[in-house]
């Protein structure tokens, strides 16, 4: 027997009521939604002989303006797992924080170190549930008991397993460096140099990426979070200093209000 009440039939499954509301609002004149800050970004990761190297640039853009010249795009997930984030900044920040918390609770519950595949499942299932509306494109990497793992996570909830990955607006620039010079089983220094150069390629050739290179090297023994690893682009010498004498800003009027009726209570 089918329910005659159409509204009530929304139990379970996906509810996208707000999509209709948003479309209605944006259809009206003079109303536009605020633009979320995107990271622009070049992020990359490689698997090398002893583990994983993750890299990221440090520019966050809001339209064509640089909102943050030195933001951190390599997010902590677990002591042995880190995640680079590209796309909408709030989304990458919150989704990695959320999964990081869930992983910690899981570690306490199981009494074991986290596995990278666990983080992957949690991320992909969450992102799929939101059908791509959470704009998080991630490079997830870490080393667990079964070895090094590197994954690429897309906003709609799919993932790829690859020995080298790049994401973000600068991904093509970075990938061209990887396709040229990657080989399996590299040494640590070579892998770090390769990722640094890939991110640098994004920094200089992609307008959405810039400033410096952050690296994270994860091995079985330890994790090294190097921020910054390479200050690729700096401001340069200032041509002049701006200074303002005290009194430059005119005080047009001043008024004082004494608060007579404040009651002080000690507890």
């Amino acid at each position, binding site marked *: 027997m089918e329910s005659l009440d159409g509204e009530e039939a929304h139990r379970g499954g996906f509810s996208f009521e707000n999509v209709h509301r948003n479309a209605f609002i944006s259809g009206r004149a003079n109303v536009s939604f605020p633009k979320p800050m995107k990271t*622009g970004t070049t992020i990359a990761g490689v698997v090398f002989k002893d583990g994983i190297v993750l890299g990221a640039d440090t*520019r966050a*853009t809001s339209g*064509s*303006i*640089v909102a943050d*010249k030195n933001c951190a795009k390599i997010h902590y997930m677990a002591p042995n797992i880190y995640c680079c984030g590209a796309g909408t900044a709030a989304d990458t920040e919150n989704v990695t924080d959320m999964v990081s918390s869930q992983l910690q609770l899981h570690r306490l519950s199981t009494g074991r170190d986290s596995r990278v595949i666990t983080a992957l499942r949690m991320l992909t299932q969450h992102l799929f549930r939101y059908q791509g509306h959470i704009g998080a494109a991630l490079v997830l990497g870490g080393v667990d008991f079964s070895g090094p793992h590197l994954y690429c996570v897309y906003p709609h909830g799919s993932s790829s397993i690859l020995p080298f990955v790049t994401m973000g*607006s600068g991904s093509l620039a970075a990938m061209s460096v990887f396709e040229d010079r990657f080989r399996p089983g590299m040494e640590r220094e070579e892998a770090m140099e390769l990722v640094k150069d890939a991110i640098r390629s994004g*920094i*200089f*050739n*992609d*307008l*959405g*990426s*810039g*400033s410096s290179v952050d690296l994270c090297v994860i091995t079985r023994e330890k994790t090294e979070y190097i921020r910054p690893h390479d200050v*690729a*682009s*700096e*401001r*340069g010498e*200032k*041509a*002049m200093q*701006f200074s*303002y*004498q005290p*009194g*430059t*800003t*005119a005080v047009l009027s001043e008024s004082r209000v004494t608060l007579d009726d404040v009651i002080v209570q000690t507890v």
Partner: protein
Amino acid sequence: GGTVLGVAGEDFAVIASDTRLSEYYSIHARDVPKLFRLSPQMVLGCAGFHGDVLTLTKEMNMATQIYEYEHGRTISCPATAEMLSKKLYYRRFFPFYTYNVLVGLDAEGKGAVYGFDPIGSFERETFRASGSAASLLQPLLDNQIGYNNQPNAKREPLSMDKAVALVREVFSCAAERDIHTGDGVVISVITKDGIKESFHPLRAD
């Protein structure tokens, strides 16, 4: 893409542009200045859609040359401004997508800066920033040259050195925060003795 800036002084004028040519998130070229010399004492800064920039500057070069042949003397800066305005308005319904700043010396030898919109509305000003980083540069110039929000500051006449240093500094600031501005800045200083050009590198990221 690109940013242009013009500043007028008592007996000189300065015009500068960045040298980056970009489209969406890519860089086409890092060494494309947007300054075009129209006469020994006049430079046109032209930013925006580069195809129209090239066509418009070609037309302006031709027009100023023809003026010389027909009148036997170099065209003056105010006259060029009027001509440019007409050229732009002629295309009122299929505009040149260009942001123009014309800089030179007026009849009395004082610095002149004319700022234009894409369809030819123009005004003579002391300083004008135009192009992608205009909204970053113009307020800073309003404050430093126009003494906006500085009612008690001592007004000093703008010296050539201060003008050039200010232009270099504001471009450096713009390159920090505007992704389309960078690579380098070309500065042309116009005096009665001619035009002196200098190049200064900017962030390449």
